[in-house]
């Protein structure tokens, strides 16, 4: 399975629709403090179905929507789309190209799409269930997670093992 592109719109500091393309190999994400690099990582987690707001560095889900600046009013929704090429048929679907899309409105309503067709959050989560990039993935790593592994906070080591086993 290969990640092809990521589109972020209204999610945290990404007020403007922003698209990234990914190739094989190693992609760097660089920039000054506070420019939005970790927000991109949060967006990917969220699109994959993350429901725990503290894993998104937020107190409530509404906080992931662009909350405005002095010159720009806040957005009414956040939307993130991830497109994959289903090489090696890792995803349990017949499609060769898979696009998952997640939208969340300030009202609290959420929408989910699989290749443009409305679906439930559960459908998205199930798609990635055995791939290693589901919730609590051992493949999305920051220093906070390194600490949790070292302190074995809330049996985090156990969780990682069971995720992969």
């Amino acid at each position, binding site marked *: *399975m*290969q*990640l092809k592109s990521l589109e972020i719109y209204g999610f*945290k*500091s*990404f*007020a*403007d629709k*922003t698209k990234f393309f*990914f*190739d*094989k*190999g*190693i*992609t*760097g*994400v*660089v*920039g*000054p403090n*506070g*420019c*939005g*690099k*970790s*927000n*991109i*990582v949060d967006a*990917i987690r969220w699109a994959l179905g993350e429901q725990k707001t503290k894993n998104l560095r937020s107190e409530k889900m509404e906080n992931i929507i*662009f909350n405005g*600046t*002095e*010159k*720009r009013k806040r957005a009414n929704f956040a939307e993130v789309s991830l497109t*994959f090429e289903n090489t090696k048929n*890792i995803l349990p679907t017949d499609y060769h190209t898979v696009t998952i899309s997640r939208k969340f409105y300030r009202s609290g309503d959420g929408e989910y799409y699989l290749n443009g067709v409305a679906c439930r959050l559960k459908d998205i989560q199930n798609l990635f269930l*055995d*791939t*290693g*990039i589901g919730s609590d*993935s*051992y*493949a*999305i*790593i*920051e*220093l906070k997670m*390194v600490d949790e*592994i*070292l302190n*074995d906070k809330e*049996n985090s*080591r*156990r969780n*990682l*093992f*069971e*995720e*992969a*086993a």
Partner: protein
Amino acid sequence: ATDLFNQAFSQIRDNFKKVFQGLFREGDTCDLQLTEPSNPLDSKIDINAKPKGKRPLTINQLSGGEKTLTAISLLFAIYLLKPAPFCIFDEVDAPLDDANIDKFNQIIRQFSAESQFILVTHNKRTMAATNVMYGVTMENTGVSKVLPVDLMALNLADEQN
């Protein structure tokens, strides 16, 4: 379920020893153990890491960088059991010295044949190890903007500073 777990555990343990030796050095050893081997489905998991010549009583006695490298070894050990299609590291290289950053990036280069890697970083050595980069900026607007970054251009700008 117990067998499945024990098999996965023993494989992760072997991977851990291999990766650890690659990230650390010849003579550095480590181990992974169940605190209650008779109760594998509930037991806590112990990490032992022993750089050559040292005798740390627990991993807590290791330095910041050594601990980070140990945790990274474990994450890669788990990854090797079931490689994820892509891996994202957010500034995980921050506590590492230059030599360890190079080792970290070398092991990523190896695994990048199998998976895509996304590395968020402030470190020049890590940047030099990427294939392509995205530069994120914000200026004073509070709105993020992204542009592909030319590695060549980055090096030239760097030497002028």
